[in-house]
Structures are given as C-alpha cells and as structure tokens.
C-alpha cells in the first residue's frame, strides 16, 4: 500500500478540551456548551483550519464534581456534523464493552452514508465502572476478556458492512426484483458472548469498510486499519511497534497563548483541578516546537490526533500557527475526500464479492 503524502492531523473536540478545568477558560459560558450552535461551530472551525478529522470522545456520565457534566452521544453528534461539514473526517469513540454490536455496526455505516465516506471508528477497548453500573452489569476488568470482546464486536461489525455486495441492488423491472437476494448475506457471526444473524440494515457503506482506529496491539491486526499509539515521550512514540496498515500518534497539547507561556497556563488550570500526565505524550510549550515534533512524527506516522487542553485557546493556536507551520507535511482535506483517502487506506473489496 502506498503511503499518503503528508500527515493527517485530527483534533479531539470533546467538551471544552481535555483539561478538567478547561471550561473556565472557554470563550463561551458553560450553559451554551451542549447546544447545536456550539457543536456546529466546533466542526466549522476544525474544517476551516484544515484538520483532517475530528474525534468525539465518550464516557458514561459519572459524578461530575465541579467539571463538565454532560456530553452528546458521539455517533449521533458526528451525524449532525456530517450535514454541516464537507471534507472533515468524523471519528466517534465507540467502546466495545457492553455495546450492542448490531446497533454499532448500523450506526457507523449510517454515519458513513450520511457523510458520504467520512466516518471512522475510534475503538474503545477499556471497560468503565460507570458504564457497567449504568447498565446494571458486572464491571469486567480482565484485559484478555475485554480484548476478545472488542475483537468480536469489530469482526461482527465488519462482516455486517460487507453483507450487502456492492452489486446487490439490481432494480430489475423484468423480474420484479429490487435486490438480488443472493447478494445480500446472513453473516451468522458467533462470538464469545453474542451471535448475529444479519444481514446489515443498509447497503455497504461508501468507504466499503468504515476505517477502524484501535489501540495498537489489542486486536488481531486484520481487524484494524489504523494503530493508535500513545506513549509518554517522543522517542517512545517513534519506537512503538505497529502492525496495522496505518499508524496514528496521540499528543496532548498545551500551547503558549495570548502572551502567556504554556507552562503558566497549565499551572493556572491545575490550581482549579489537576490534570495529571497519563500515558500520552504531552506537549507543553510553543507552537513552533510543536511543529517540530509533528514533523518528526510525520516520518513515522500517517496521522496524529491532537488533544488540546482548552479547545477555544489551544485549538485556535493550532489553527493559526501550528497547521500553517506544517507546510507540505500537512495533508489538507478537500471536499470529496473520504477518510480512507485522508489516511492513505485503499477501499477494500467486500468478502462476499463474486
């Protein structure tokens, strides 16, 4: 597979940013966050800036403390954005644990139809205690069980996406057949904890298969299009092994903004609520240095997912300084691109193709 030219740069648009106190620095009041106008504005800004895609995080609502207490359903919100954007990839996080795989598959292929090929699936492979409690079921913590479940959910979803052959719709007036029933298949999937008869409720999605972005190393590689890599340092990121056709690096960003150095901004935010470093590289510094980091990542990765501390602040610096600074290293989307085009992924043939 030929490598695409340039880095596809995505941005996470959950809430007011990844920092738990981000809402205190947003340029809008809290009670306008969960509105259609705000969501549409986030999509417009990302598209205008030249981001390849947005990701929409997810978590089941728990006790919010002083922070943001609400969140749209990511797939549904992505579908709203599909009608307000033309080139932007739309990549909701959907967790495998407790999911109803038939719904997940149809919702994601629906999003791909809605966006004419701009959907992606950021796979969540962890289980949350809050989600287990919300469903009234046991909280599964065994990593092997969760990985097996995730593999089954993805496998089932993929089989369903292929269940209508491309040429299933024949509209043959002479025989009175709208579809050729021999080209629409039961999938008869049997997983560890569920079974699905099929077929899917809609024809094959425009991309053939919605690209699956999954944490590197958790699923059999043939189920994954893009390995998502998180590591605490740049060297660790560059050295991380990947097996999927494409690889994506995750970077949290806190940038110098409005004359205030990034470290000072972060310290001020942390005085409200601490944002402890996790398993991801966190860039705290100037935009020019981030451009340098991204150029180095471009040698090894096809895409990055930037996770801004404060969307309204760091997102603006990314748009105004970082993306323009990437020059030819940036792969800017144009209307008509699919997410596969952005990521340099070929459109796969269906498994039932005759």
């Amino acid at each position, binding site marked *: 597979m030929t490598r695409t030219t340039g880095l596809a740069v995505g941005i996470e648009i959950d809430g007011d940013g990844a920092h738990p106190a981000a809402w205190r620095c947003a340029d809008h*009041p809290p*009670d306008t966050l*969960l509105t*259609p106008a705000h969501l549409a504005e986030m999509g417009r800004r990302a598209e205008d800036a030249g981001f390849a895609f947005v990701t929409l995080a997810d978590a089941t609502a728990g006790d919010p403390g002083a922070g943001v207490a609400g969140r749209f359903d990511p797939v549904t919100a992505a*579908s*709203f954005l599909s009608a307000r954007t033309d080139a932007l990839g739309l990549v909701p996080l959907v967790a495998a644990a407790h999911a109803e795989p038939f719904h997940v598959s149809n919702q994601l292929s629906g999003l791909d139809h*809605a966006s004419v090929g701009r959907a992606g699936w950021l796979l969540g492979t962890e289980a949350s205690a809050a989600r287990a409690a919300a469903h009234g079921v046991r909280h599964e913590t065994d990593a092997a069980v969760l990985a097996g479940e995730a593999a089954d959910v993805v496998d089932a979803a993929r089989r369903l996406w292929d269940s209508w052959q491309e040429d299933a719709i024949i509209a043959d007036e002479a025989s009175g*057949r709208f*579809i050729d029933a021999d080209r629409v298949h039961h999938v008869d999937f049997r997983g560890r904890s*569920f079974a699905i008869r099929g077929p899917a409720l809609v024809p094959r999605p425009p991309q053939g298969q919605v690209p699956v972005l999954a944490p590197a190393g958790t699923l059999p590689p043939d189920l994954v299009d893009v390995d998502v890599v998180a590591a605490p340092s740049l060297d660790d990121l560059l050295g991380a092994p990947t097996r999927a056709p494409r690889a994506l690096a995750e970077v949290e960003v806190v940038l110098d903004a409005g004359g205030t150095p990034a470290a000072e901004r972060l310290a001020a935010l942390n005085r409200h609520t601490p944002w402890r470093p996790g398993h991801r590289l966190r860039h705290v510094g100037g935009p020019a240095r981030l451009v340098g980091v991204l150029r180095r990542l471009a040698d090894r990765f096809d895409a990055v997912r930037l996770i801004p501390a404060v969307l309204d602040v760091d997102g603006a610096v990314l748009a105004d300084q970082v993306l323009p600074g990437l020059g030819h290293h940036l792969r800017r989307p144009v209307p008509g691109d699919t997410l596969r085009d952005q990521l340099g992924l070929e459109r796969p043939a269906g498994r039932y193709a005759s």
Partner: protein
Amino acid sequence: MAAPEPARPHARLHLAGFFGFGPAYVWSEADPHVYYDFAAWRRLAAAAERGLFSTLFLGDSQRLREHLGRVTDHSVTGRPDQLVLFAHLAAVTERIGLVATLNTTFSDPVDLARRLSTVDVLSGGRAGWNVVTTDNDWTGENFRRGGDVTHDDRYRYAEEHLATVEALWSAWPDGVTAASADAASWSVPGAIGEVVRGARRARPSLPPSPQGRPVLFQAGESPEGREFAARHAQGIFSRYLRFDEALDFATDVRARLVRRGRPADDVKIFPATRVILGDTDAEARDKARWFRDRTWSDRRVRAVVEAVWGHDLSDHDVDGPLPAHDPVSAVQTITHGVVNTSDRPRRTAAAWRDLAAQRGFSMRDLVLHLNESIEFVGTPSAVADELARSVRAGAIDGLNLQPNAVPDGFDDVVARLVPALQDRGVYRTAYEGTTLRENLGVLPAPTRLGATA
C-alpha cells in the same frame, strides 16, 4: 357507545411525513440508490418543512424482511439508523419534528435515553419517541438480549425501560448549568441526579432540550395500547381512517385522557394513509391505479400467496386461480419473521379460496383486495373538503402521510393540498413555535408544568 365529540370549528390538521421500512415505492421510476442517499432524505425533509408538516416519522425494523428464508427482494428494503438520520436532518431543518420508532426490547434504556436526548438537544427540542416493544425472537437473532424476553415479560420489561428513560430525562433540572465561566462549578453541586433502578446506577448525559424532553408516541389499538397512550403519549399513530371508526377511536382515547386528568386534546391522532391528487377526479383515480399496479408487481403478489403456501409458486400465473393444493404446513414459512408452525396456513388458504370463489378473484385480485387501504384520491379541493370535515368533527387530528416517491414524494401535497387546506382555515400558515410540543399543541413536559401554570 361514546357520544360524538362536539364539533371543533377551529381545529387544524397536522401532517406527519412517514417513512416506513421497506415500503413499496415505484422503484423502477427512480435511481435505485436514492433510497439510501442522505441527499434524498434532506430533500424530502425540506419539502415537508416547506409544507409546514408537524413532524417526520420513521418506522422501525431491526431485521430485513425475509421471504422463504431469503431477504425479500421485490421491494425497497433497509434504511439507515433512525437517530443517525434524524441527527443529520436536525442540522438542516428548523421546525419540523423528528419522531423515531425505537424498540424497548433491543435497546438498553441508558443508551436510548442518551441518543434520543442528543437528537432532542441538537434539534432544539424537536425529537419524539414512538415506543414499541416486541417479543420477536426472529429479530432477536441480531441482538445480545433479543431472544431473552418472553412474551409475558416484555410488557414488564417495556414499562421498566420507559420508566428508566423518563427518570434519566427528569434527572437534569432546568437552569442548573452555570451561565458564566467564573462560576465556582460547571453545574450546581448535587443538582444533577443519579437514577438508581434495580442494579442500575446511571446519570443523565444532557440537559433538558428547549421542549424539556422528547414527546412520546404510541402505535397500536389494543386496550393496553390506548391506556399506555392515555398515561404517557402526546401522539398516536393509528390505522382508523373510516369516519365512524376513526371518531369512535378518537372519542375513546380522549375519554381515557380525561379520566387520567389530562386535557382531551393533549394527544394527537395520526392515521396512516397516502394522498394522490389530480386536476380532475378521473385523473387522480388513474394515477392511483397506475401507482397500485406498479407497486404490486407479479413477484410481490405471488410472494403474499407463497408466504401462506410455504413454497415457491413461480409456476403459477398470478392472473389465474389460487393453487389447488393445500399449503405445505410441515415446512416452516418465514416471512416478515413470522414462523407458521400451526394449521393457520391451511385455514387461511381455505378462507382465501372461499373468498376467491365467491368473488371470482384471481390471485392478483385477491391480494389487492386484502391489501386495500384507505387513501385520499381526488382533486386538492375535494380531498381538502373531506379532511376538513374529519378534523372538525374530531375523527382525526392529523395524517401520517407516506410519500409516493423518493425524493419528491411530498411535493404534490405541499404545492397543492396544503394551500387548499389553508384556504379552508384548517391548516397552519406558519409554525406556532420552535419545538415539537409547541407545534403539536400539547402541554409542556411534565417537569415544566409547574413553571408554566
């Protein structure tokens, strides 16, 4: 027998734009891929909104229909996830409602509450939920939880499901999110509740929409269904369209509302139908006949008979008599997910043969007779007169209107019937408000009744 409702001289008709699952469009007249194209849905929605329809409405099916063990091939089949479609349409419409039919058996209430709230908030308060439940094991083959619910349990399960959803929708009060970034906390501490039901502990994901929470619809005419509607619903999708039947049904439902302490007009009744218009009555009838003949292909007619006989009848002429032999009841017939294992096919076949003999029916005549539906066929002014009478008499509140074509199936109604209804003062000339509750003319959500009283 209930007394007739007093006349409603100022009542107005509501239109709902209905997209059934696998309806019989004249697919040979269009690009066959148009049925899955969101641009076509946007065009249908825009036409309905131009025509001041109260809402769009989607039917539900979570498994493609099958015929003799294979996917049904004679009609358009399949449709995108309803809330994915409605979230997309919410972004390109302003006033029209978005009512989805969602099944309690195959969805978790926490997921459903959240997805529907998302559409409600993103549409500015225009979402609705037509609550359905099923014990269909056949559809359950696509789901983790599908096969588990027995017939007796499904109503209990559905009640608990709805109660959980409503509890989640009530748990985030109005006005508890901070209006300034300088506030001490994002929301008033402790104001957003936790819902505890059985083993579940869940919190709501979104604040109330401008209409508080999605409106509820109900479809079904059984006494249980009517009581459910009287307790919970703001809308009913019905099948009663003949004037006397419709009036009886509406009168009964309204009496049940009043017994529950609700205003009689707090639920709107929408029978399903089609409208076919012509410049003259004869032209409209010609169009209706053309439409019927084109949607009832030989293959589709034969499939109805095959579903009872249980096997392929392609060697039988549909313009000839019913098969002389008895149905193969030993073979399980799978059509629409219904498995015939009893002697019902034999009894049905006998009844059909009797009817065909009495009336001299061919297979086609019989199938068309059995599937005759009430439609409004005529000139715009004649149809408008008839509808005005029904609405003013209280027999119906609206029509659940199926388009005859995609993507332009509402254009005729919008261009010709709507103005005729407006001339008669029986149809709005502008949307009353921005939310579905306002445009249906029903009370505010329960959580807001106190605030507005």
